[in-house]
């Protein structure tokens, strides 16, 4: 009697908890870090060609989506990732979480924008490029000259006037650090960051925050990425988007199918579509540099010279040394807390 009652109670509890989570064949769970305001547009464009595949977005910032995917490694919930940093996807690839599949037409993409392996594990969409957001109103108030290079930012005049993302949590922060190490060499890169650290007011968790803070006048200079700067400028912020002369680091948003998905066919269709010319034209609405050659048109408020300023980024090197770089960064800069 006791046990029967117990089982019935448990069954009742389990009954209340159980939530139908079975997806039909034409539904895809898509993990993404694409900006929220673009998601509806992306799904609608895709559905023009594949009306019977429903996209269920799971959207969060790069770090969180990556953490989520890793946490779910043994028990994946995503069918496909559409729009996540390539370095994150490489990390997942190392963990053996990605399905090797070359989408139709992959050879048309700029080789920079696709996995070198054959078949490919991931394919690029667009480049997401570091930039400096410079608030002209606040800079004038503080009497700051316009910086033109990364080295300029280490000048004493900018003390406590610069914010950048923490590379340990932000993909943008990491691409900055990795680009400085590639530009200035290992030793020179760390020396540069030592100098920059003197001027940094604080490090933020997210990569878009420095630019939004600059846009709101909370800081004159935010190290962020060009896309964010262009968006804020479009909203009327007194911003100048500066592309430092030494060259800028970048990462790309990319697509990959998660190994073990139950909806492989639909996922392949989305992967195929994600590299079409049409899709790239769609990415080009926000991003000036896209994976499909010859598609890119200038984007309003985007610095025109940005494509040429992109450094020759060694993603394999960055992915391989990521852990060591972040540990070193944390040792140097994270332990130092403001005395004030």
């Amino acid at each position, binding site marked *: 009697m006791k046990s029967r009652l117990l089982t019935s109670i448990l069954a009742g509890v389990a009954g209340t908890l159980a*939530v139908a989570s079975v997806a039909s064949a034409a539904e895809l769970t898509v993990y993404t870090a694409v900006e929220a305001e673009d998601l509806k547009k992306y799904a609608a464009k895709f559905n023009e060609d594949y009306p019977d595949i429903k996209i269920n977005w799971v959207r969060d910032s790069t770090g969180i989506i990556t953490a989520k995917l890793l946490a779910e490694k043994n*028990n994946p*919930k995503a069918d496909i990732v559409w729009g996540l940093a390539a370095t994150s996807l490489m990390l997942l690839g190392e963990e053996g979480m990605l399905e090797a599949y070359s989408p139709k037409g992959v050879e048309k993409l700029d080789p920079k924008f696709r996995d070198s392996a054959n078949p490919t594990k991931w394919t690029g969409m667009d480049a997401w490029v570091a930039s400096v957001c410079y608030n002209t109103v606040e800079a004038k108030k503080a009497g700051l000259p316009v910086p033109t290079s990364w080295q300029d930012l280490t000048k004493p005049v900018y003390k406590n006037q610069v914010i950048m993302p923490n590379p340990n*949590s932000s993909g943008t922060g990491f691409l900055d650090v990795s680009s400085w190490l590639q530009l200035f060499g290992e030793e020179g890169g760390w020396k540069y960051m030592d100098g920059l650290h003197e001027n940094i007011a604080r490090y933020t*968790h997210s990569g878009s925050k420095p630019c939004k803070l600059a846009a*709101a006048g909370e800081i004159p200079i935010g190290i962020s990425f060009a896309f964010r700067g262009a968006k804020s400028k479009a909203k009327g*912020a007194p911003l100048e988007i500066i592309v430092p002369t030494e060259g800028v680091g970048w990462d790309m948003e990319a697509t990959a199918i998660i190994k073990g998905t139950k909806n492989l066919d639909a996922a392949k269709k989305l992967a195929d579509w994600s590299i079409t010319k049409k899709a790239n034209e769609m990415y080009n609405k926000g991003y000036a540099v896209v994976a499909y050659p010859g598609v890119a048109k200038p984007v309003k408020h985007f610095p025109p010279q940005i494509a040429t300023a992109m450094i020759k980024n060694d993603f394999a090197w960055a992915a391989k040394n990521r852990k060591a770089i972040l540990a070193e960064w944390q*040792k140097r800069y994270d332990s130092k*807390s*403001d005395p004030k």
Partner: protein
Amino acid sequence: MTDQTLQTRATASAIKPKLSRDDWVMRAFILGIGLWLVVTLLLPLYSMLSKSAQNKDGAFVGLANYIEYFSTPALFHSINNSFFIAIVSTIITISLASVFAFILSRSMIPFKGVFKGIALLPLLAPSLLPGISFVYLFGRQGVLKDWIGDYSIYGPIGIVMGEVFYTFPHALMILIAAFSIADARLYEATVVLRTSRIRTFFTVTLPGIKYGLISAIFVVFTLVITDFGIPKVIGGQYNVLATDIYKQVIGQQNFEMGAVVSVVLLIPAILAFAVDRFVQRKQVAMLTARAVPYEPKPHALLDKIFFVYCCVIGLAIIGIIGMAGYASFVTFWPYNLELSLNNYDFDVMDGGGWSSFYNSLKMAAYTAIFGTVIIFTGAYMVEKAKGFKFMRGIIQFLCMIPMAVPGMVLGLAYIFFFNHPDNPLGIIYGTMPILVIVTIAHFYTVSHLTAMTALKQMDPEFETVSASLKVPFFRTFLKVTVPVCMPAILDISIYLFVNAMTTVSAVIFLYSTDTSLASIAALNMDDAGDVAPAAAMCMVIVATSAGVRVLHALLTRGMARKTQAWRKR
């Protein structure tokens, strides 16, 4: 099992050889509640502890993670920071709140009810609200930024100010309770003995509130050291334990280190909790039956000073909430001060959109309903069941644990436990039910204590009489116990509802995009730099909690007339 329990068992069975049907059912319920607590609390915590002693591949590595933690200055410095913040905030909050509580319970200033209402307002807001508000008050573009001179609000100053705002009502409620149990006879004695006011304060007033004061100190300390929202929003480079857990887990996907920091954070929280429990047990005997309630007398000058003090604190609280409210309507701070509803257009913001608010409403409603049923039933079984003492003792102990477990720690523990591939309960991972369950577990203790207090006031004769009339216990439970305890039940449900609306810490690791919550959306919007929309989302939460509170007050009044008439003669 000790001999004594065996003996009691033996005697019990000697008197009553056969357990009745009611007894069996009650025992089944007790086991059910026990199982619930084990699954939603004990097992997750155990998974977390074991995770802290594993490497990335899940192999046992003993204390290796702890050694790594304590050899990384960036990490263990946070212990100092956390303690520093907690101690400073506790001193300030307790000083401010004890004076406020003293005034409300021992003076004759006007508008006491209004002041108390204002002072409790921070309870309705998520803890990130003060952080956001301080950005607008004291940030670079802040309206009052001259007040803090060259110091930066992003750091310890901002955190401490935010924590004081957030913990003030918690301290105040405990201290008001402590002040109001004074025995007027002692004060009459001081008057007769012509003791000076100051001496009276130190020899009568202070010893009288001693236990309440200690309890308030530890409650505030625990709240501050485990809080995540304020340091996240305004902490800048100042790392504390709670934000470290978040950084390790979300920023670096280092779950093992997250577990280590969680254990480190768990220790002071448990210690503070243990002291608090110990002290509370002593307080019970304070008020004797012969005590006479203290009645404050007017004092012209002091009452004026007190009134000004209350006005200052009240204005500060309203100012902080008001600033966030104002900023949420400003189109583009500080360059376009035109008022608009743009920041409330959550659907185009990164973070969750309006759907996260509806999720929050749903989550809070489910938590209030299921939580109240589970917790009240559990408390009833623990209090009213006969025999089975050992099991009831264990459950009583389990019910106390959540108070000592920081929300972030509980949330992380849930990931480890519920997302384990071998766990059949894994189906709830990433769904609404897991959010409801974790929230119930997180706020279990206070609700349980409220229920216990109400149940203890009920005469056990009810059960005896119904038993002798052969009325099944659940009928007594539904027809007598529940109506009589209705005020307490409503209190529990409102407590659960408001906390479910405002909580961030436990759910931050557990939400999925379909089940994003309003408070998390606010946090993520702030994280992405959308500070004004974050303020807007906080205001939506405040308005909702306030609305529900008002509804609750009306309901209680109506209900009281119906169910509590028996209390009057």
